[in-house]
């Protein structure tokens, strides 16, 4: 009657492949993942994409909690775990079981890093997420804190968000300074996890194409023995094959 228990401690048993990216805000990880998806799409793979804190139901609650600043480190952590569980069930496991590719912008490591910095027990967070599956590839886009700040302030965002800057922790009255302290601590947590979880570390200070080429090489190698499964040939795949696919790829 009960389904087999999934665990994060072992490789997952599914035919699909799960590729995730981690890194600070402003590390460029999302850009890289989008480019990777373009490439995989163009190769005719069936690719699914999911991102942190995006399931409808929980996002609304998180927004409400953040607005009233009523979230504690533990409820903050649990809400994100709920969101993740919901996405795991609806967006990650079905394509994984069907043998497709899943790309995730941030994964459980984001929680491990952020929640530890907020003061939640690291052991507890790891146990909390034990129902998740281990990714096949985890890219970590490593960037010095100053570069991340410059990118964020120089880009579309004129100011940091309250929780992103860790303002709830009372680190500093100045939001940029708070961001710097908070994100530095997250950076330290990421660095600790590199060997613990076998991250593929990417130098995120390099230019975009260079990083993307490296990433594609690593992924291509990892997918050597992977046989893609498709139900139908989607419109997008056809479009790419007919008009856009460069010869070099």
């Amino acid at each position: 009657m009960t389904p087999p228990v999934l665990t994060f401690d072992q490789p997952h048993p599914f035919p699909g492949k799960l590729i995730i990216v981690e890194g600070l805000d402003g590390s460029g990880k999302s850009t890289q993942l989008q480019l990777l998806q373009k490439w995989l799409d163009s190769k005719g793979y069936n690719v699914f994409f999911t991102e942190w804190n995006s399931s409808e139901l929980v996002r609304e609650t998180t927004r409400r909690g953040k607005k009233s600043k009523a979230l504690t480190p533990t409820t903050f952590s649990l809400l994100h775990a709920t969101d993740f569980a919901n996405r795991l069930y609806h967006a990650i496991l079905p394509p994984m079981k069907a043998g497709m590719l899943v790309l995730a912008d941030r994964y459980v490591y984001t929680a491990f890093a952020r929640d530890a910095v907020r003061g939640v027990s690291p052991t507890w967070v790891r146990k909390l997420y034990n129902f998740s599956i281990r990714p096949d590839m985890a890219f970590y886009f490593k960037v010095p804190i100053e570069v991340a700040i410059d990118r964020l302030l120089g880009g579309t965002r004129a100011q940091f968000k309250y929780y992103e800057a860790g303002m709830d922790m009372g680190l500093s009255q100045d939001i940029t300074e708070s961001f710097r302290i908070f994100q530095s601590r997250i950076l330290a947590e990421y660095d600790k996890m590199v060997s613990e979880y076998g991250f593929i570390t990417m130098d995120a200070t390099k230019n975009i194409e260079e990083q993307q080429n490296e990433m594609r090489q690593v992924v291509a190698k990892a997918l050597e023995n992977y046989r893609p499964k498709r139900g139908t040939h989607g419109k997008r795949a056809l479009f790419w094959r007919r008009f856009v696919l460069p010869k070099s790829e």
Partner: protein
Amino acid sequence: MGNGHYFGDGLSYLNPSDLKGRLIAIEGTDGVGRSTHIEMLQEWLEVQGYGVITTGWTRSSLMSKTIEVAKQGNILDRWSFSLLYATDFADRLEHQIIPALRSGFVVLADRYIYTAFARDLVRSGDPTWIRNVFGFALVPDLVFYLRIDVDTLALRVIESNGMNFWESGMDLRLGADLYDSFKKYQALLIEEFDKMAEEFHFEVVDARKPPEEIQEVLRAKIEPVLKNDRRELQHRDVPIEASLT
């Protein structure tokens, strides 16, 4: 609580050693009269001059609406459900229960973490994960388990509000209709509660007795716990900041 302690990996940013009040939880399946008894206990305690707050499953300001929406069928997997309950519980623990205990209130909890344990276990068969998740919960001073047999329970629920989708565990498809499913589901829950009663030393109370008789039993068990409290706490007056290490 005196020296309160956490069930497992606790809130590492919150020291529970200076909680003056008492935490009393009432557990049991749906329809055993938990809320009636909590009302009566509150009255009885307040007449004696105790400060009392009550707290109930899914009643947090953060989560109650979300859980309602989830129950409409927006979330169906076991993890999300258990985590929604855990978030609700954490919100109440940090915003209601711990502050009240720190100020010396008696906290009466309508359902506690054991409800989550039973519901998750029935769906997963694995007790470890859910117990780890609720590691941050405070261990209560007293846990009452209002025990009932499933036949009496079925009669009671039909007589009062009727059976609903979730109380019948319809997500598990245990039976052909509400009634069959209700009985199977509640029987499984009772089985789990019975096991936990031994493991966690619940005070088991026969919920089929008349309410007055049950109240007498509850009060007799609560009295010594409160007396204990008073003696122990005469010289405790630590400011709140000191315990927030």
